[in-house]
């Protein structure tokens, strides 16, 4: 883990209220897996005391670059959206353990993303697709919120669902799973808690991994802000340190 200044290489709107930012710097060299995240300092001085966590959507060790996709929510993401090429961002990371991809071979894998839960799945799909057959179901609010459809299509059979039916399937990602009626060997999901809970229930017989969000303080396991009840000895996990990815049987959503 590392704290450093990363340089903004680009920062652009890619869907409604959704930005893609590319950052360059040595923190990238420490990334070991898809699904890890970075903790970004926001604002000047000590006006914003909490960093903001964002999943690493993609990374390129050689180019020393990583990509984040973020949605405008409040002060922090608003501030981020004004950063221009050439400016520096103070980043703590990579944090968390990310998705286990080592040794997964010849499987039919389902990847399920909802909204800003889609980004961490992109590099995951890239990696898994080299030795597996990957199907991706990506859910968005509506047509203008969709991003990265083409990019996913290059590595996975990609299905899009929108809440309002303005594009692709109308409804939730779980509806799409139902309609497919296929049995997968393994799944990976990231998205709002409600979606993760529904997926966890729906695919109860399948080995799965869930990437979870929670409001964070330290981001490094010291403050107990980000706990989630779990079926383990301690009765909880810390999302920042033990996660953000957990086996679907471990966490109680």
């Amino acid at each position, binding site marked *: 883990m590392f704290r450093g200044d990363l340089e903004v290489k680009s920062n652009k709107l890619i869907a409604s209220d959704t930005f893609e930012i590319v950052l360059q710097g040595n923190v990238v060299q420490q990334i070991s897996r898809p699904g890890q995240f970075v903790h970004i300092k926001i604002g000047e001085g000590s006006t*914003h005391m*909490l*960093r903001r966590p964002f999943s690493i959507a993609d990374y390129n060790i050689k180019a020393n670059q990583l990509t984040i996709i973020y949605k405008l929510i409040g002060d922090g993401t608003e501030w981020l959206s004004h950063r221009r090429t050439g400016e520096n961002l103070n980043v703590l990371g990579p944090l968390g353990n990310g998705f286990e991809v080592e040794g997964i071979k010849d499987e039919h894998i389902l990847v399920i993303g909802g909204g800003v839960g889609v980004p961490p799945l992109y590099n995951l799909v890239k990696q898994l697709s080299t030795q597996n057959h990957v199907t991706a179901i990506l859910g968005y609010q509506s047509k203008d919120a969709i991003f990265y459809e083409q990019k996913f299509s290059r590595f996975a059979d990609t299905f899009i669902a929108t809440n309002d039916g303005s594009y692709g399937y109308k409804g939730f990602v779980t509806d799409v799973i139902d309609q497919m009626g296929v049995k997968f060997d393994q799944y990976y999901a990231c998205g709002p808690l409600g979606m993760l809970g529904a997926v966890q229930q729906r695919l109860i017989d399948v080995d799965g991994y869930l990437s979870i969000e929670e409001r964070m303080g*330290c981001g490094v396991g010291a403050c*107990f802000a980000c706990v989630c009840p779990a079926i383990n000895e301690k*009765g909880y996990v810390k999302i920042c340190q033990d996660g953000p990815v957990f086996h679907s049987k471990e966490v109680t959503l």
Partner: protein
Amino acid sequence: MNLSVKLGRLVLKNPIMPASGCFGFGKEFSQFYDLNELGAIVIKAATGNPRFGNPTPRVAETPSGMLNAIGLQNPGVDQIIENELPFLEPFHTPVIANVAGSSEEEYVEVARKLSKSSTIKALELNISCPNVKEGGIQFGTEPDLAYELTKKVKDVTNKLLFVKLSPNVTNIVSIAKAVEEAGADGLSMINTLTGMQLDLKSRKPLIANETGGLSGPAIKPIAIRMIHQVRQQTSLPIIGMGGICTAEDVLEFLIAGADAVAVGTANFQNPFICKELVDNLPKVLEQYGIHSLDELKGAAIS
């Protein structure tokens, strides 16, 4: 410059320590720098039994501050002694244990157990945690209860006993005087102020516990006022805290009457902050013409 300070019989190599609850049990921050750099380490609150704490969300950001309602989550005093303290033992940095509970008996039991550990050099009696429904806070707002509790704990410990005061009171001096009379060896101040943030969409408190403790630079003027006020009335050592982010802030607390300082929230924005403060303090002291920390003694007394 010699930065060492004395808190009663406890000598610290410098006046900088992380505040309880913001540094876990030290392990995580040891990735960032050598914990031997610190004046002391205050570990997360210990209770009699393991506690899961409050539901999430537990933190929110506020202007120049944050709210937290962790709810004293911790593995319980026995496991802390067994699993957490061994990691800290080899460091040459005194460890201060934060003692919490929901009843007098629990506080006393936790204090007694922690006092047996040679790794622990002092106790910080947390009579002021605003995020626990039962107990906790009342001990910090009623001088009589604060007196009683301090006395009982003092009876079972041979460690230095710091009492951590709540700022959510009309008259902090009366609490400080009460715990001094009960035998406290020092004061820690301030804990967080009770606050709330509402989520405009759900129209409900953003933090699941509804209220949370306000910390960070926003509360610094209140901390400085209270330390200054208490310093007029006691010569007990004071560990000052509340919004410290810079070496200038450290100096302000020392002038106000603190003997050492603890840094909480700032660790989240900058995990290297405590070490950076240790490094920067001499420079800032010199900039203000201060050649030894002793010069600041009594600056506050008006």
